[in-house]
């Protein structure tokens, strides 16, 4: 299918998984990770209110700019200054993100 992209996710044990996700369903990266049965806490379900979906971006894809809410939440969780930190629930999947590589942050532990 055209609208499937590949994403590489390194879990907390350091294991790299390749997941496939559709770009036409309004899924966030957090939801794609969850749907593939990788462990990610994501307490607030994607409202930028918990930071338990924190990831480090490992590839140089162009990502959507951070919203105020994402910035504020990363700040509260002491992750704002830490390079390549994003909330995976705030990154919506699009074809340009094919090949994206991320690593789960410590806060995602279930």
């Amino acid at each position, binding site marked *: 299918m055209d609208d499937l992209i590949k994403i590489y996710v390194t879990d907390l044990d350091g294991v790299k998984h390749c997941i496939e996700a559709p770009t036409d369903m309004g899924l966030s990266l957090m939801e794609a990770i969850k749907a593939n049965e990788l462990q990610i806490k994501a307490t607030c379900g994607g409202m930028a209110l*918990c930071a338990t979906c924190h990831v480090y971006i490992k590839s140089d894809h162009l990502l959507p700019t951070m919203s105020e809410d994402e*910035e*504020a939440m990363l700040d*509260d969780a*002491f992750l*704002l200054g830490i390079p390549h930190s994003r909330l995976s629930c705030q990154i919506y999947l699009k074809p340009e993100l094919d090949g994206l590589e991320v690593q789960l942050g410590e806060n995602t532990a279930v």
Partner: protein
Amino acid sequence: MIETDLLIIGAGPCGLFTVFEAGLIKLRCHLIDALAEPGGQLTEIYPKKPIYDIPGLPSILAGDLVKNLMEQAAPFKPGFTLGERAETLEKTNDGKWKLVTNKGTEHLAPIVVIAGGLGCFEPRKPNLDLLDKFEDKGVEYIIKDPEIYRGQNVVIAGGGDSALDWTLFLSEVAKSVTLVHRRTTFRGHPDSIQRVMDLASAGKIELLLNSEVTALHGEDHLDKVSITNFEENNTAERNTDHFIPLFGLSPKLGPIKDWQLNLNKESISVNTFDYSTNIPGIYAVGDINDYPGKLRLILCGFHEATLMVQSAFKRIYPEKNLVLKYTTVSGVNSF
């Protein structure tokens, strides 16, 4: 010693609804919560968000749902131990449970209901050397008694509503208030943000943006902090009696994990017949439990609580028979 029939750990929606269902069959309840107010995640994480999947309520703000649940439980006069964490649980000689909180408050009941949600809400703590050392010696994460700040110098850190609200409040009480925030914008009520800005321009408080507390100093008690400004790349020391980091709370399972309950990761495994755990007399309802097909939704927790109290009743009164009565028939007979 506080005595009751059902001792409920967690005053989130599921704990609160348990009070109502237990009350209908004349069981008394007492709730313990680490938060200072009831409501669990609804109060702490999303009080102003609408919920759309409570049966019969097309839309309700989380804060209002908590208010309604409190009102619904009120006829059954629940007791509350708030702002304390359930710490230790042991069986007494007569087969009851004795639960002691981190503040030493003792509770006794034949039945314990764990409605602990995602766990105990604990403050997010900044990563600073000596933070542990100064806890309760100048560093506080939760403001319990604002009077202790009267005439004192206070440094607050954070960018959300609690940092803003306490800055406003303490500006009237403390000798000086400094609000330190890493960013230049706040996530809070526009009105509070405006009032903080106004106080800062009037010189009543000091507002340090793009800044962070980076070190703590003192002998037995905190007496100084270092504040780094990232934009100007400089660090200055400031005398202070208190440092109050307000970065919100996040849930942790906490002491419950040492109670010999069967766990699946951070959740308590239960039997879906009555939501009992592996330990007789201890039940678990709401987000904290786990069973095949579990969904962490408020409505599922309500259902679990309703079935659970029936089983609890039979444990307390093995000789009595319970007959289901509709509330339309029996009404709500308050205690």
